C-alpha cells in the first residue's frame, strides 16, 4: 500500500458489499394464478327476507361501533327493534356456524343494537334523496305499508298512508302480544318513519270506490292491507256464542290493557303463531288453554321456540284432533273431535292426515277460540293470479290499471306471511316504483334482480343505491369454504328470559336485555362469511410482502401489489372467510 497518509489507512474491505435492494426484480412475472379480493354473500344475508348485511353488522358490533351497526340495519329495514324480537330468524337456520357449533344469535344482537340506540336516543344518519315531486298512496299501515312509506320517503317521494283502524301498525299493533313486542318499541319505530314526512291517516278505510278515487290524487298506490280476516272452520255450530275469532280476541286484549279475566278451560283451534299467541294470552288472563290441532305437534306452523315456551308455561296441546261440530251448552260449549291418524308425510315433511276409525270424542270447554289462519278482508285485495301484464317481483307484484301503477305487497303477495317478509315487500315496492318513475317499466324487473342478495328472495337497498355492497358477488359462502382453523368452539349465548313463574301472570316482555359486552362476544362468534373484516391474514402470510394495507383503517380492502405477487395462493387459502379468489392469470 503506497498511500502515505496514514490517517486514511485502514484494513481494506475484501468482502463485497451489496448496495441495492431486490426490488428491481419484478417477481410478478412468475405468476400464473392471480389472487384477488372478491367479497361474497353470507348464507344468513341471503336467507334474511330483508337481506340484512349480517356479517358486516356483526363485524361492526365486535368493534363496538353500535351506532354504525344500527344504521346499517336501518338501511335495509325500518323495524330492527321489532324484528329483533319477533322475526322468525331464518338467518340463524342458515348460519354457517351451525355446522361448527351453534348458530350466531343474530336476532338477539339486532335487538341489542336497536335497544341501545333507543336507550341513548341516537339519531340515525339516514340518506334522504332529493324530492322527486311524486306522491304515492299506501293502503295499510302494517309492516309492509310502513316500510314502503319509509323507503319511498328516503328515495324522495311523498307518501300518505291510509289505515282503517284507529292506530297504525297493523298486525304488529293488534296481533302480537305485549310479552313479545312492547308497545314502546313499535311506537318509536313508527315515529321514526313519520319523522321522514310520511303522513298516516287513521280511521280511513279504503273500500273499492275510495281506491278508484285515490288514483286521481296520486302517482301510484301500494296495497298492503294484509290478511286481516280470520278463516272459518266451516263446521256446524261455529256461530254459537262462546266461539270467537282468535285475532279479534288478541286485538281486544291489546286495545284494552286491563286484560279481561277468563276462567276455566279454553280451547284454541289451530296450529300457527296466532293460535300460540292466543293460548299464551288466555293463560295470562287466568284460564287453562288447550290447543286443538289436526296434525302433529311437529307439523305446527308456529315457530318452534314459541311452541316450546307455550308448553313450558302450561299450555296443553291436543294433537291429531279435528273438530266436527260445536254445540252450545248452558255455560260453555261442547266440541266434538275426530281423532286423526298420520297417512304419510308430504314433501315439506308435514304429516298428511285422515280420520282414525275410532268414535269421536266429546269435550266441553268454557270458551273456544278459532285461529286457523287469515285471509284478505276484501276480495279486490287479492292478487294471487298474475296476468302477463303484471310485473311479478320477488316479494311484490306491480300491476297496471291502464297506465296507473298499483303495487301489491305484504301478506297479499309474499310467500311466507311474516312481518319480515311484509317489510321486504314494502322495500321492494319502493325500489320498483322508483325505477318505474326514473327510467320506466321495462327496467323494473332487471333493476330489482340486480339487487338480489345471494340466491334467495331478498333484495338490498344498499345495492340498489350502488353502495359498496354491490361489489359482492351472489355466490353464497358454504361452510366448506370457511377456514375453520381460525375459529374456536364457543357456545352460543343463550337469550336471558323471565322465569316461567314471572311470565304467566303478566304481559311483560319475556326476553331480557343483554349487555354490550355479551353482544360483542356473541357477534365475535360470527365467521363474517364472505367479507373482509381486516383480519390481515393475507398481509401476514404473504411471502412476497406484496399485500399492502394503507388506508385500511377506513375499512377498504387490502391491495395486492402484482409487481411482486408470485401467485402462490396462500392469502386465498388463509383467508378465514372466503373474501378472496384465485383465478387463472390471463395471458
Amino acid at each position, binding site marked *: 500500500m503506497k498511500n502515505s497518509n496514514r490517517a486514511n489507512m485502514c484494513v481494506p474491505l475484501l468482502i463485497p458489499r451489496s*448496495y441495492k435492494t431486490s426490488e428491481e426484480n419484478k*417477481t410478478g412475472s*412468475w405468476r400464473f394464478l392471480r389472487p384477488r379480493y372478491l367479497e361474497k354473500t353470507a348464507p344468513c344475508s341471503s336467507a334474511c327476507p330483508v337481506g340484512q348485511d349480517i356479517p358486516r353488522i356483526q363485524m361492526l358490533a365486535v368493534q363496538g361501533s353500535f351506532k354504525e351497526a344500527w344504521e346499517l340495519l336501518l338501511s335495509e329495514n325500518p323495524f330492527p327493534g321489532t324484528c329483533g324480537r319477533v322475526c322468525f330468524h331464518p338467518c340463524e337456520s342458515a348460519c354457517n356456524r351451525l355446522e361448527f357449533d351453534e348458530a350466531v344469535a343474530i336476532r338477539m344482537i339486532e335487538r341489542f343494537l336497536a335497544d341501545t340506540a333507543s336507550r341513548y336516543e341516537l339519531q340515525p344518519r339516514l340518506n334522504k334523496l332529493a324530492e322527486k315531486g311524486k306522491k304515492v298512496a299506501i293502503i295499510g299501515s302494517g309492516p309492509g305499508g310502513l316500510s314502503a312509506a319509509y323507503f319511498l320517503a328516503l328515495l324522495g317521494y311523498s307518501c300518505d298512508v291510509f289505515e282503517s283502524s284507529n292506530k297504525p301498525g297493523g298486525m304488529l299493533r293488534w296481533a302480537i302480544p305485549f310479552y313479545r313486542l312492547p308497545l314502546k318499541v313499535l311506537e318509536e319505530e313508527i315515529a321514526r318513519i313519520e319523522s321522514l314526512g310520511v303522513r298516516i291517516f287513521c280511521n280511513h278505510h279504503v273500500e273499492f270506490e275510495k281506491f278508484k278515487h285515490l288514483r286521481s290524487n296520486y302517482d301510484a298506490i301500494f296495497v298492503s292491507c294484509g290478511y286481516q280476516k280470520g278463516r272459518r272452520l266451516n263446521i256446524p255450530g261455529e256461530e254459537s256464542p262462546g266461539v270467537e275469532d282468535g285475532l279479534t280476541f288478541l286485538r281486544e286484549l291489546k286495545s284494552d290493557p286491563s286484560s279481561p279475566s277468563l276462567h276455566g278451560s279454553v280451547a284454541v283451534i289451530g296450529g300457527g303463531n296466532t293460535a300460540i299467541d292466543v293460548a299464551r294470552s288466555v293463560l295470562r288472563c287466568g284460564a287453562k288453554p288447550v290447543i286443538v290441532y289436526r296434525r302433529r305437534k311437529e307439523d305446527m306452523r308456529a315457530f318452534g321456540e314459541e311452541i316450546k315456551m307455550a308448553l313450558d308455561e302450561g299450555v296443553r296441546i291436543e294433537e291429531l284432533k279435528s273438530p266436527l261440530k260445536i254445540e252450545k251448552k248452558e255455560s260453555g260449549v261442547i266440541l266434538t273431535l275426530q281423532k286423526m291418524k298420520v297417512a304419510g308425510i308430504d314433501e315439506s315433511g308435514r304429516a298428511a292426515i285422515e280420520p282414525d276409525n275410532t268414535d269421536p270424542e266429546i269435550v266441553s270447554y268454557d270458551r273456544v277460540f278459532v285461529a286457523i289462519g287469515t285471509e284478505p278482508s276484501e276480495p279486490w285485495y287479492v292478487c294471487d293470479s298474475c296476468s302477463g301484464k303484471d310485473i311479478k317481483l320477488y316479494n311484490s307484484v306491480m300491476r297496471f290499471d291502464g297506465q296507473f301503477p298499483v303495487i301489491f305487497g305484504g301478506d297479499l303477495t309474499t310467500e311466507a306471511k311474516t312481518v319480515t317478509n311484509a317489510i321486504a315487500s314494502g322495500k321492494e315496492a319502493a325500489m320498483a316504483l322508483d325505477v318505474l318513475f326514473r327510467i320506466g317499466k321495462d327496467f323494473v324487473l332487471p333493476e330489482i334482480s340486480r339487487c338480489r342478495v345471494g340466491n334467495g328472495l331478498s333484495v338490498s337497498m344498499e345495492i340498489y343505491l350502488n353502495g359498496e355492497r354491490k361489489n359482492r358477488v351472489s355466490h353464497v359462502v358454504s361452510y366448506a369454504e370457511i377456514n375453520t382453523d381460525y375459529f374456536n368452539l364457543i357456545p352460543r349465548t343463550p337469550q336471558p328470559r323471565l322465569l316461567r313463574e314471572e311470565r304467566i301472570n303478566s304481559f311483560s316482555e319475556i326476553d331480557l336485555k343483554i349487555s354490550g359486552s355479551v353482544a360483542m362476544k356473541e357477534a365475535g362468534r360470527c365467521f363474517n362469511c364472505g367479507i373482509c373484516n381486516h383480519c390481515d391474514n393475507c398481509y401476514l402470510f404473504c411471502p412476497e410482502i406484496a399485500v399492502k394495507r394503507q388506508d385500511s383503517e377506513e375499512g377498504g380492502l387490502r391491495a395486492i401489489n402484482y409487481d411482486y405477487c408470485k401467485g402462490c*395462493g396462500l392469502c386465498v387459502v388463509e383467508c378465514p372467510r372466503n373474501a378472496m379468489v384465485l383465478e387463472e392469470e390471463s395471458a
Partner: protein
Amino acid sequence: MELSVPDREFMYSGHVACPGCGAAIAMRFVLKALGEKIIMVIPACCWSIIAGPYPMSTLRVPVLHTAFETGGSVASGIKAALEVRGDHETTVVTWAGDGGTFDIGFQALSGAVERNEDFIYICYDNEAYMNTGIQRSSSTPYGAWTTTTPGQDWKKMRKKNIVEALVAHRIRYAATANIAFPEDLINKVKKAKNMKGSRFIHIFSTCPTGWRVPSEMSIKIARMAVQTNIFPLYEVENGVEYTINYRPKGYLVKEYFKLQGRFSHLTEEDLDQIQEMVEEDWKLLLRKAGVFSGS
C-alpha cells in the same frame, strides 16, 4: 382486527424464494421481532440465494454469508469482535437450514452453545437439503421421499430431535416455532432477544417444492404439523423448565401425510406405525414437561 405483530418490514419484495416458501415467511416474522439492531450470519442454504445475488440485498439488516458448517463459530467470532469494539447492543443471529444445523454445522453449534456464546441461533427447518435439490438430512422425517431416498428406499430413520440435543447442553433457551403460528413465533423471538447466552429457535418451515405440495397449502400444512403433534410447540429454559405452548386437538397424523407428495408411497400400516411413533414422542415430551400423559 389488531394483530400483535409489529408493522415494520425488514425484508424487500423481489426476492427469489419459490412461491409459497415457508422459509421466506419465517424470516419475515423473525426480523419483525428482532428489529434492525442485529447482524445476521447465513451459512450456505436456500436463504443464501433468497438474500439476493450480489449486489442486491433482500434484507434491511447486515448479513454475512459464510461457509456451510460455520454458523456457530462465525457468530461466536462476530460477537467477540463487537464486544472488543464496545458494542454490547447488537444481537448476533445465525440463520441456518436444517442441513447446516443438524448435520454439517452441528459441531460448531454444539461448541458455541457449550461455551454459552451470547447469540441467537435460528434453524429454519424444511426437512432436507433443499437448495441443492432435496437431499435427505438428519432432519428429514421417517417415511419421507427425497432425491437421495427415492422409491422404496424412503427414509427409514427417525428425525433427529435437535431441540433435545441442545437442551442436553443446558442451553439458556430453546424453543420450537412454526410459520402458521406467527404470534407465538414472534413472542419467542422477542423473548430470546431479551436474554443473554446461547438461544436456539427451531422454526418449522414448509417447502412446497421439496415436499411436493401446492404452494397455497404451505401454511395449512405447517399448522397441521402442530395440530397432529408431529411438531409440538414448546420451549425450554436453562435446559430444565419445559413449557408446552399448544395443546393439540387430536388430529390424526395421516391427515398431515395425505396432503404431501413426499409421503404418497406410505401404506396405511406405515401411517399407523408413524402415528405410534408420534404418540410415543409426545408422551416423552409430556413426561419431561412434568405433565402426566393422557391429555
